[in-house]
């Protein structure tokens, strides 16, 4: 496999204005949902992004998918800047990047037969004749383990896991090279979750796909990813190869997250628990946004913002303790 860069994100920010007013609205503040993040994913690799709710991970997914325009920064997908795409070029870009989202109950149009759900991208992009499209849809269903004889049923006749399979079939229909997975298994039961994760990994192998997987569940992300980024209040605080992150977590937040994730083994006991709660993104703390909860906080942390530093090859962290 060549080390070809699939997605490169440079200094990406997305700020949402907060407005108030009954008749005339005025901007009273900004939420920095995503604040100056950078990462890159090589072809065939999987980057997992973990973080708690409101840390900006879903906004990141929307930006990479071109559903939202960034406030600043660049997203370069196979040589093209997503933010600059418009009209025809954006339409073409859609063929390369597809997505699977969290809630299998909300990600399929309840009024359409699953055959139409799976073939809609093909119809919109006019790939082949209607007969070919129909055949392709059945093949895709078969591929993800749905009996093609059920193609004329509606989504409500399927269970959560099956719906997620249908959503995956749809994402694959245009032969994309990149798939964005936004919490793909968090709405599923444990035994179904394993089925879907296995399916995703098989498909990645088979079609040499590049994944960007977003989840709050560190164990799931660790299981499928080659690299992991940890997000806190709109920023990536640590980015490293998956194995390295678990063995040698550097940022205090990463350590806290690892300690807080309950492990399904009674011998591994919960370690130190992080105090306090995530501050409001409308009013983030100065300096390092993590400093009010940080066990290793130094006076300078309150005022100085940190840049990412490469500690070992491929392992970046944004913390004063490691900025040599």
């Amino acid at each position, binding site marked *: 496999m060549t080390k070809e860069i699939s997605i490169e994100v440079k200094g990406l920010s997305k700020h949402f204005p907060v407005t108030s007013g009954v008749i005339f609205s005025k901007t009273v503040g900004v939420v920095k949902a995503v604040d100056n993040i950078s990462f890159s994913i090589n072809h065939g690799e999987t980057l997992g992004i973990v973080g708690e709710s409101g840390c900006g991970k879903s906004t990141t997914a929307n930006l990479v998918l071109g559903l939202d325009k960034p406030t600043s920064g660049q997203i370069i997908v196979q040589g093209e800047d997503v933010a600059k795409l418009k009209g025809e070029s954006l339409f073409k870009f859609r063929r390369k990047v597809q997505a699977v989202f969290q809630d299998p109950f909300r990600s399929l149009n309840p009024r359409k037969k699953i055959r139409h759900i799976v073939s809609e991208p093909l119809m919109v992009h006019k790939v082949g004749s209607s007969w070919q499209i129909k055949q392709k849809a059945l093949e895709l269903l078969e591929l993800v383990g749905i009996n093609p004889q059920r193609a004329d049923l509606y989504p409500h006749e399927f269970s959560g896991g099956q719906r997620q399979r249908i959503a995956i079939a749809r994402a694959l229909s245009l032969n994309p090279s990149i798939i964005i997975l936004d919490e793909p298994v968090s709405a599923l039961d444990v035994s179904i979750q394993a089925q879907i994760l296995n399916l995703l990994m098989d498909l990645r192998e088979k079609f040499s796909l590049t994944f960007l997987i977003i989840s709050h569940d560190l164990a799931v992300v660790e299981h499928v990813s080659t690299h992991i980024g940890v997000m806190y209040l709109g920023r990536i605080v640590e980015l490293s190869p998956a194995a390295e992150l678990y063995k040698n977590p550097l940022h205090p937040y990463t350590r806290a997250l690892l300690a807080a994730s309950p492990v*399904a083994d*009674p011998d591994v006991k*919960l370690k130190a628990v992080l*105090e306090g709660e995530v501050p409001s993104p409308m009013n983030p703390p100065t300096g390092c946004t993590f400093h009010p909860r940080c066990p290793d906080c130094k006076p300078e942390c309150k005022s100085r913002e940190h840049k990412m530093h490469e500690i070992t090859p491929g392992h970046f962290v944004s913390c004063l303790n490691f900025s040599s």
Partner: protein
Amino acid sequence: MQTSENILELKGVKTYFSTTKGVVKAVDDISFSIGRGEIVGLVGESGSGKSMTSLSIMGLVPQPAGKTVAGEILFHGEDLLKKNDEQMRQIRGDKISMILQDPMVSLNQILSVKYQIGEVFRYHDKSILGSLKEMCIGVLKKVKVPSPELRVNDYPFQFSGGMCQRTIIGMGIANGPDLLIADEPTTALDVTIQAQVLQLMKQVQEETNAAILMITHDLGTVAQLCTRVLVMYAGRIIEKAPVNTFYKNPSHPYAIGLIKSVPVLGRKSDRLYSIEGQPPNLLNPPTGCRFAARCEQAMPICTQEYPPEVSLEADHQVSCWLFAEKGEQ
């Protein structure tokens, strides 16, 4: 069972729902007991009937469709199913209390926190013990809500999710219950907040020595908190074991599959084990073992007759033909 005194004992409890399509057997013949100071985990996937089990104990099965039709629920040896509404009301919130899953919707958004905590005292004649406000502040202090004197007058929408769940836990333990049922208490919370709440519950348990029935789908939470595990599948309990035995040496094929299908941090494998298929419909559950259709080791008898509960050790029971006499034929 392993402790001398059982706080709660369920014997053959069945809770059914009548719908126009037929009877849904949400809880079908389950028996277990909880000793003083134990933390018991009731594990199962969505739809397995674990929430209905807890509502059956509370006597709060949604009426009129649902009803506990058979069995005994013994609390300190007295059958809760034989109590009238007023007697149950006095027990609820005092001797038995419960924590619900989503803290943001289980508090009434338009009543103050003070009022809602106060209800626990007011309706169990505890208000003579002191000023209601002081007692409410005490509750918030116990569950470590910051600056309780000020926050007590707030409304739930001014609290974060974690604080709401702390408040609910506080209400649950306010009257020193013997049994606390926690129905997915951390599912709606973020990872770091979840850890705080779990730690709080453990601490509370140590202080009050209340028994906790922890209902969850998260095997991680169970491993961290519980002393004993009950596994529920499609309305029935299929395995009961101490927590160490359960994780090290599970017996029922479903329990084995469940444990193997969870990704564990730091133990990356290429493939997860996965149980193929879907749980059965509780409207018309299969006559035999309910897991038979998904089981790799299914035998002919599995689809014909429900397996009896077999004791492998003193406190390790399993309902599976692999361990029962007839199954070896």
